[in-house]
């Protein structure tokens, strides 16, 4: 119970202090980089509704992303997991870097992504689906001792045209803690659009331009030994984002499992707060201009 309250406090604290504008995706990355000097704080929560009477679980994630330059964004993630009649645990951290190699905008914009993960086997956040990831049959308390150090890479391809964003991610993941395990692969695809093309002159919360909607599709592609869509989990997830003022965004996405290996539903919620000019504020605290 105490650890449950600790995770809850972490989540609430981050919500109060914090998230950003951007596409409404949860698992798909587009080519929007964090603005230089801005700090984005966000929380995401996944509620996993499983098949065959397997327990429902809850997994929160806190993200701190900073724009180092116009072409380099870096982020730290802290994550947890909880289930009724089981346990509530901290499941590890992730360090992420994204690089945009091209200086300006193109028809297709590539971004390179690299992440190091030090997580527990009990991790439930499913920031991405790879390999033959499927149902969470084991108990969180039983998996908490399993430590996994993984590296993950993504090739992000993204385009903006006529108000639409289309983004494709190809994912590979290697478990460094079990080097004999094959490299796993996954994908994520998203398409989205704001609900209005023109910004109204009014200062309004519910104007259509403050909303963006779309759909994501993500899942596993098997592993090095068996590259396949079969026996892997796949999800289709409508996404909706609501921009609240200049710095905050709320988003929601019910992800429906569409293959036998999928869970019934991954319900995701997210909140983002962006601190503009964070780097400059810190610099001024230490006597910078």
């Amino acid at each position: 119970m105490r650890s449950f309250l600790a995770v809850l406090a972490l989540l609430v604290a981050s919500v109060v202090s914090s998230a950003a504008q951007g596409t409404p995706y949860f698992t798909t990355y587009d080519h929007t980089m964090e603005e230089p000097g801005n700090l984005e704080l966000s929380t995401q929560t996944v509620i996993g509704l499983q098949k065959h009477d397997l327990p429902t679980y809850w997994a929160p994630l806190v993200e701190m992303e900073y724009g180092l330059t116009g072409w380099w964004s870096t982020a730290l993630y802290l994550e947890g997991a909880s289930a009724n009649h089981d346990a509530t645990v901290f499941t590890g951290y992730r360090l992420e870097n994204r690089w945009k190699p091209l200086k300006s905008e193109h028809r297709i914009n590539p971004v390179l992504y690299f992440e190091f993960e030090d997580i527990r086997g009990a991790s439930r956040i499913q920031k991405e689906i790879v390999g033959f990831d499927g149902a969470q049959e084991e108990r969180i308390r039983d998996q908490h001792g399993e430590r996994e150090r993984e590296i993950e890479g993504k090739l992000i391809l993204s385009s903006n045209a006529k108000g639409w964003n289309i983004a494709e991610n190809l994912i590979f993941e290697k478990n460094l803690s079990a080097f004999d395990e094959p490299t796993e692969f996954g994908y994520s695809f998203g398409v989205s659009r704001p609900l209005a093309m023109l910004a109204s002159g009014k200062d309004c919360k519910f104007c259509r331009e403050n909303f963006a909607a779309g759909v994501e599709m993500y899942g596993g592609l098997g592993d090095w030994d068996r590259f396949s869509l079969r026996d892997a989990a796949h999800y289709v997830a409508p996404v909706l984002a609501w921009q609240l003022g200049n710095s905050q965004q709320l988003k929601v996405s019910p992800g429906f499992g569409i293959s036998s290996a999928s869970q019934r539903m991954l319900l995701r919620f997210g909140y983002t707060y962006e601190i503009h000019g964070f780097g400059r504020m810190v610099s001024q605290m230490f006597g910078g201009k």
Partner: protein
Amino acid sequence: MGARLLAVGILACAVSMAVAQAGVDPSWVVPEKARQQQNPLKDKPDAALGGKKIFTRTCVTCHGDEKNARKNNAPNLGSEVVQAEPDGALFWRISNGNSRKGMPSFSSLPEPQRWQLVLYIRSLARK
């Protein structure tokens, strides 16, 4: 010969520092076709109000607003250098950004909203 090279070096540094101070990147060239694009919202001055809203959300942190000048190396958008640019050039710069100099691409904004920004930027011209 050495003194001449030194002088040229100092001059080059001074020019590049002056350019950096002005927030202008000489390699950030707008294609001619883009410069010639006309603002489709030119006859809708009310659209600038929406532009102001987007400006506050996306531009003020670096460029400042009409009351406060720029807050870092980003150019003041009311300056003569910026205002001398045609609408199409401003639209291109907003759309493409210049990630090497810290200017993000705002292609994620729908095109009409980027034109609204151009409309609002025009209203920042120093009187």
